[in-house]
């Protein structure tokens, strides 16, 4: 199993996709400074400093950049490999289909973790460089006045930020399981990417329109770190964890079933 995971991680790092996403994350980190230059931050009366930049950036990227990274990666790792005939390479050796799928998902988790760490470190560095370190961690939701901001002392703020990044792996990988299932259903990477991105947009809109179902949508779980660190609502957090776990485990088991039954004709 270890060697299978090693193979998958090696392949992911050998493609240019990770570099492209690192570059996109780098560019995204200039957005707060752009907003500063445009005066949008002062106008909204938001305090941004080096301590809070990573939290703001995570809140922003968790619903677009990271899900897209997962979609592109899985479209490549499953559908792309199937269509190219390389998915069967490992299966012509003593490797079970369940092990191969598991190894791919573990590899994706590891690479996603690396991307998140890169993003965290970069946001700390660029935030500090542009806004200065600041004296405390202070986070405001859009339209939230400064006196209601979520405030943590520096050390606790660092803990909250790192924990939020680590915690984000759970909803992202649960989302990954849904994409895995779809990647096994279709034979074209382009179709997977299109449908998956469409799904993210649709679910985001659906959650806004039909509010009662919002807590049960996978996209709502992306920001589960805010339930515990901003809203400080343990019930909502546990509910989101449960919903996310049901999505993750359910779709993984469905994917395993589908893959075991699938005739590999490419």
């Amino acid at each position: 199993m270890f060697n299978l995971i090693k193979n998958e991680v090696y392949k992911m790092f050998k493609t240019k996709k990770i570099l492209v996403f690192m570059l996109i994350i780098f560019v995204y980190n200039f957005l707060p400074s752009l907003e500063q230059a445009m005066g949008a931050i002062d106008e909204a009366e938001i305090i941004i400093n080096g301590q809070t930049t990573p939290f703001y950036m995570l809140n922003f990227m968790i619903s677009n950049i990271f899900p897209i990274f997962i979609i592109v990666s899985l479209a490549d790792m499953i559908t792309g490999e199937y269509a190219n005939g390389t998915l069967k390479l490992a299966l012509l050796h003593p490797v079970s289909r369940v092990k191969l799928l598991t190894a791919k998902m573990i590899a994706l988790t590891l690479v996603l973790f690396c991307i998140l760490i890169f993003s965290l470190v970069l946001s700390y560095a660029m935030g500090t460089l542009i806004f200065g370190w600041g004296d405390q961690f202070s986070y405001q939701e859009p339209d939230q006045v400064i006196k209601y901001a979520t405030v943590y002392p520096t050390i606790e703020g660092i803990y909250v930020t790192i924990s939020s990044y680590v915690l984000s792996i759970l909803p992202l990988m649960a989302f990954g399981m849904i994409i895995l299932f779809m990647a096994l259903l279709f034979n074209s990477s382009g179709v997977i990417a299109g449908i998956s991105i469409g799904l993210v947009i649709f679910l985001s809109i659906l959650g806004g329109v039909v509010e009662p179902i919002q807590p049960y949508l996978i996209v709502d779980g992306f920001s589960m770190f805010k339930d515990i660190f901003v809203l400080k609502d343990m019930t909502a957090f546990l509910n989101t964890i449960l919903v996310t776990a049901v999505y993750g485990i359910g779709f993984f088991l469905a994917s395993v079933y589908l893959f075991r039954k699938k005739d590999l004709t490419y």
Partner: protein
Amino acid sequence: MNNVLEVANLSKSFNGNRVVNDVSFQVEAGDVFGFLGPNGAGKTTIIRMILNLIHSDSGTVRINGYDTKKDFNKAIKSVGAIVEKPSFHDYLSAYDNLVQIANLHPEITNRRVKEVLEFVGLRDRAGDKVKTYSLGMKQRLGIAIALINKPTIVFLDEPTNGLDPQGVIEIRNLIIRLAQEQGITFFITTHILHEVEQICNKVAILKKGKLIAQDYVTNLLNREKELIQVHTNQPNEALNLLQKVKYISKMEVLPFGLKVELDKGLSVELNKLLVSNGIGVNYIVPDNQTLEQFFIELTGGSKNV
């Protein structure tokens, strides 16, 4: 003899259409087994079922004595295969592609990776990305991947497809060398019947998902009848004379004389009969049946294997 591969009563349907129908055959250790059939006959589906890439509706496959459904890991451990076309991670080098496979077998060392690269003549280009390789080099890399785990049986699905004549000869010689020097059993499908005749000792012929012939190549071509060409300037006289001869089953007048199908070993008798009746015989030339002729006869005229 020791059967490396035993296929029994294999069947498969896609969307209610039966594409493989009760196919059974055995491949013995050391065989170079040619698997032939027109396009769409079910050859690749059968290879995929043998290798568990496609699930069969019924039937069993045993490789080296292990049932592929019950003991897949043991069955597949000593198998090498290229299915349809050799597929690689083309953004990786040949060396990296081989390491990817070596990582799946704890016993394969780095030395073995270099050994197979050397064997297929890719050592000098091992560090280059596969996307820069020619088709011939990719075929050789495919063979390297198929050999890396020291298999007892290698499946090659149209190994010379798309290669230039030089490449065809290279791959053919490689197969012969491996079969002779290392005793590897080969299971080959190919478009080129002449090639099968040159390298395979046994063949099975498939038509519309059913096996219609299987035997040693020599047995298939060495039948009770033989064909000869009788070169004569008096074909009509010869035809009249031979019409009542019992050991002759078929005759045809051709520009050079006659083409005659007769019981095996009686061509000398025929010659004597013609000469004693005053018919001048310039030559008698054996018209040996090729595998291609046999194949066309069996499958109903399609040359496209």
